[in-house]
């Protein structure tokens, strides 16, 4: 079996591709070769050993669906891919749109529908949470600087300025909000989300939905170390039934089909959980899940294969991850191949 995975950008803003592959490799009942689908010739996953059999450059979805489809078709003619696991938020719409055509090529995916993807998007999260009785910070969806004048309706500064796909800044006054708005709008487009700042500790959940409303598994983690980009660089598995119960509610309400990451803040004073974001894919820390006893990426592969996967019921707490900067040494011929041939 051949499984192609995107998101090998294991940088300081890491994509989930490498940990998804490592998780699948941990399941010895899956006999699979992995293929890396990459957008850049310097994605670190390309240069890692025992992660992929081969890597292929693919065009960014923003450059057009046809170009992406034709390239995937070309790669499939060589590799005969069984499964593609897209792991980046920004490519999901494209893969959802291409799913029927990829199915015709014999390639299976495990993705939500466009409607499901939309209802949890950052600009719609507030309404989704309100409708499902989940605590959520107030927000404004800003399409222009004019909208920033409504920030006082969120309460006092600081507030969080967020891109529709990625990036967030905590800002302390109107001037900082304007600067962050322009920076994010330039990079990720509109709308820009302005969210109430909730003070507390950050907790995340990785979950897997079967597409029928059942949560196949979920592992909760407390971030122990957060980088200046807001990325969890170390974390530990914890178990709080309240977190798992909210995650179950989200999976049931969306009938989610795929991996999901839920980001929470637990308030310091009341201990309540506020849902900050629902990310529509496995997170970059998903390798914690098999090590805690729930191999969610592997479970997804089993479901794609049509196998019955009973929901996980438990996992081990106190399992930690710590990321490390680790230089990979390679020969420039690897870069040459990927840059000139588009594969390596």
């Amino acid at each position, binding site marked *: 079996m051949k499984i192609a995975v995107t998101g090998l950008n294991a940088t300081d803003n890491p994509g989930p591709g490498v940990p998804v592959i490592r998780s699948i490799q941990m399941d010895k009942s899956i006999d699979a070769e992995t293929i890396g689908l990459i957008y850049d010739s310097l994605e670190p996953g390309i240069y890692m050993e025992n992660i992929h059999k081969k890597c292929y450059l693919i065009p960014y979805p923003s450059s057009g669906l046809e170009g992406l489809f034709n390239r995937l078709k070309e790669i499939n003619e060589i590799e005969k891919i069984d499964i593609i696991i897209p792991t980046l938020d920004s490519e999901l719409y494209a893969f959802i749109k291409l799913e029927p055509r990829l199915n015709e090529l014999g390639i299976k995916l495990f993705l939500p529908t466009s409607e499901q993807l939309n209802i949890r998007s950052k600009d719609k999260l507030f309404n989704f949470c309100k409708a499902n009785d989940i605590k959520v910070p107030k927000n404004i969806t800003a399409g222009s600087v004019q909208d920033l004048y409504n920030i006082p309706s969120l309460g006092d500064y600081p507030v969080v300025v967020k891109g529709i796909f990625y990036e967030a800044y905590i800002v302390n006054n109107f001037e900082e909000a304007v600067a962050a708005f322009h920076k994010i709008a330039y990079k990720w487009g509109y709308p820009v989300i302005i969210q109430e700042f909730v003070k507390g*500790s950050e*907790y995340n959940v990785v979950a897997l939905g079967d597409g029928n409303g059942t949560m196949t598994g979920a592992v909760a*983690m*407390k971030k*122990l170390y957060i980088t200046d980009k807001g990325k969890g660089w170390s*974390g*530990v*598995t*914890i*178990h*709080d039934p309240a977190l798992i119960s909210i995650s179950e509610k989200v999976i049931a309400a969306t009938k989610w089909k795929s991996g999901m990451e839920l980001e929470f803040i*637990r308030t310091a004073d009341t201990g309540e959980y506020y849902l900050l974001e629902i990310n529509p894919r496995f997170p970059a820390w998903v390798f914690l899940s098999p090590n805690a006893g729930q191999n969610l990426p592997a479970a997804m592969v089993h479901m794609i294969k049509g196998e019955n996967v009973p929901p996980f019921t438990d996992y081990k*707490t*106190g399992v930690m991850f710590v990321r490390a900067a680790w230089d990979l040494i390679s020969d420039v011929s690897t870069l040459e191949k990927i840059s000139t041939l588009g594969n390596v």
Partner: protein
Amino acid sequence: MKKFEIPGNIAVSESGFAFSPSSGETFNFNELGASIYKKLRDNADPDQLINEMTDEFDADRAIIEKDLYDFISELKKFGLLKEL
């Protein structure tokens, strides 16, 4: 007699490292702190603890009492102890 319970199965290792599996918080006790914490977990009576420590450290009972209740108050603040 005041009784206490430790919420959320908090485990304390021999070295005094405590981990809360429900919140993910970690704490470091010194030797004495770990010993008192474990005794409170095992339903020790604070008055009895004060007597023991007054004898052991040859210190003023009032100071020991104040220190112990300060410590208990810190434990409660961090969610490490709940009064039953």
